[in-house]
């Protein structure tokens, strides 16, 4: 359909990626290029389609806009599958990761579970899909900051009891910068709405989704995804390993 034709006609695949931090997406200072797990997937998809890759940095507030306007062809932007999103967009059925939100907070905060957040200030990125469950399910008082660094600074400044972001990012952060974060920990054992990270396309672009789905499956079975994940130090690769097994088996 339209998108797939255009990608082929132009010879480029335009991917919206989010630079919310390692391991998914960030800027490498020395080469000043975008790096991360999402970027690796994007590259693999473009290679498979036989076109060049073009990436556009998106933010949670503008990513859906960009996709719907056609500024990007697909989104690989830490966007989990939700029913609300499925109403307005189409998606690639096979997920490339599964993740949920983790809450980082002070070790001495005494918070044990998501339910403890009731009435407490919680920092997220603006447009994060954790907003709705945090408000509606747990009754937290959500504060959306422009992006993750601001959210984390706000946490350290004491403006919220926890900051909720994608688990893998937080895990890696705490691991890499123990000095800055020695009083902090991932507080809850469970992840918030653990759901499948999928690639999103415009509504009605079924063919594009199917074409990409094939590639993603291949990446799973060939072990490429797992490889990318390891290269980018994704903390939790359980899902990927399992997916690789099931997909290989079904083949």
């Amino acid at each position, binding site marked *: 359909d339209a998108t797939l034709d255009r990608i082929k006609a132009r010879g480029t695949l335009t991917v919206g990626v989010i630079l919310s931090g390692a391991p998914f997406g960030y800027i490498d200072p020395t080469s000043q290029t975008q790096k991360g797990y999402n970027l690796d997937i994007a590259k693999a998809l473009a290679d498979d389609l036989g076109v060049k890759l073009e990436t556009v940095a998106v933010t949670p507030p503008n990513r859906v*806009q960009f996709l719907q306007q056609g500024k990007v062809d697909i989104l690989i932007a830490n966007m989990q599958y939700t029913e*609300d999103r499925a109403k*307005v967009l189409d998606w690639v059925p096979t997920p490339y990761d599964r993740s949920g939100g983790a809450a980082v907070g002070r070790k001495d905060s005494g918070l044990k579970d998501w339910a403890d957040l009731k009435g407490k200030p919680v920092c997220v990125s*603006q*447009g994060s899909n954790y907003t709705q469950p945090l408000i*509606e399910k747990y009754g937290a008082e959500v504060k*959306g900051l422009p992006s993750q660094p*601001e959210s984390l600074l706000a946490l350290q*400044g*004491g403006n919220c009891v926890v900051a909720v972001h994608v688990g893998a990012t937080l895990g890696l952060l705490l691991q890499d910068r123990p000095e800055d974060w020695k009083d902090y920990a991932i507080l809850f054992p469970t992840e918030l709405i653990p759901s499948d990270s999928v690639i999103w396309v415009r509504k009605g672009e079924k063919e594009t989704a199917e074409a990409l789905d094939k590639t993603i499956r291949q990446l799973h079975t060939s072990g490429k995804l797992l490889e990318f994940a390891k290269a980018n130090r994704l903390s939790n690769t359980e899902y990927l390993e399992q997916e690789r097994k099931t997909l290989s088996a079904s083949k």
Partner: protein
Amino acid sequence: MWDSGITSLFVDLTNRLGLNYEFLATGYEAQIWRDGFMTTLYLIALLIPVSLIAGLLFAACLTSGRLWHSAPVRAFVEITRNTPTLVQLMFSFLVLNTFVSNLVGGAQNNPLTPFFWVVAVVGLHIAALHAEAIRAGIEAVPASTVEAARGIGFSKLQILRYVEIPLAFRASLPAIVNNLINLVKLTTVGNAIAVSEITYASIMVWTQRDNVVSLMIVILLFFSIINLVVARVGLWVERKLAVPGYGL
């Protein structure tokens, strides 16, 4: 506040114009959005007196003729006028606030909220502009009028209180009203630190619903009306204070 019947009628009617206000019929988004208006109004209502009082203080320091009063204010005025308010706000909220927390022995003791920081940064920024306007007004008071007051036996403070400030205020009123209009516009930067004013609330809504145009129309109208009111009130005060034969 909004009767559900009216809401759905409104949503229906606007839908026919191609506008999307469906979120008004739902739960937390509608709530956030409505609260956004109130927060903006509350911010403005708080900021106007704060900026005026701080502006007066700054102006007093600037015109005191004492270096240790005027120099810090001068420095502040220059910095606040020549760096983006957005950056000031993020810096204050994310950096200064942390210092404060450390000073008072932990974040839990820190009473300063994002709301406070918006009021502080925007308020002081506009106060700096007020101060410049008032200073210009004070300098425009004829030296001989001041000397006449001195000759009668007024003290420096009394001259400031009874002669210079009333005259300077009148002279600088148009500039002050202009600053207040800027103040109203500046409240929108609050969204960067999660103060749930109207733009923040709208971002929360449109990131989920792709109804930017619909929300934008309302926001633009909203600010136009507020600023119309501010300008009108300013004009009214100007007329009220107008003295025959003085100034414009």
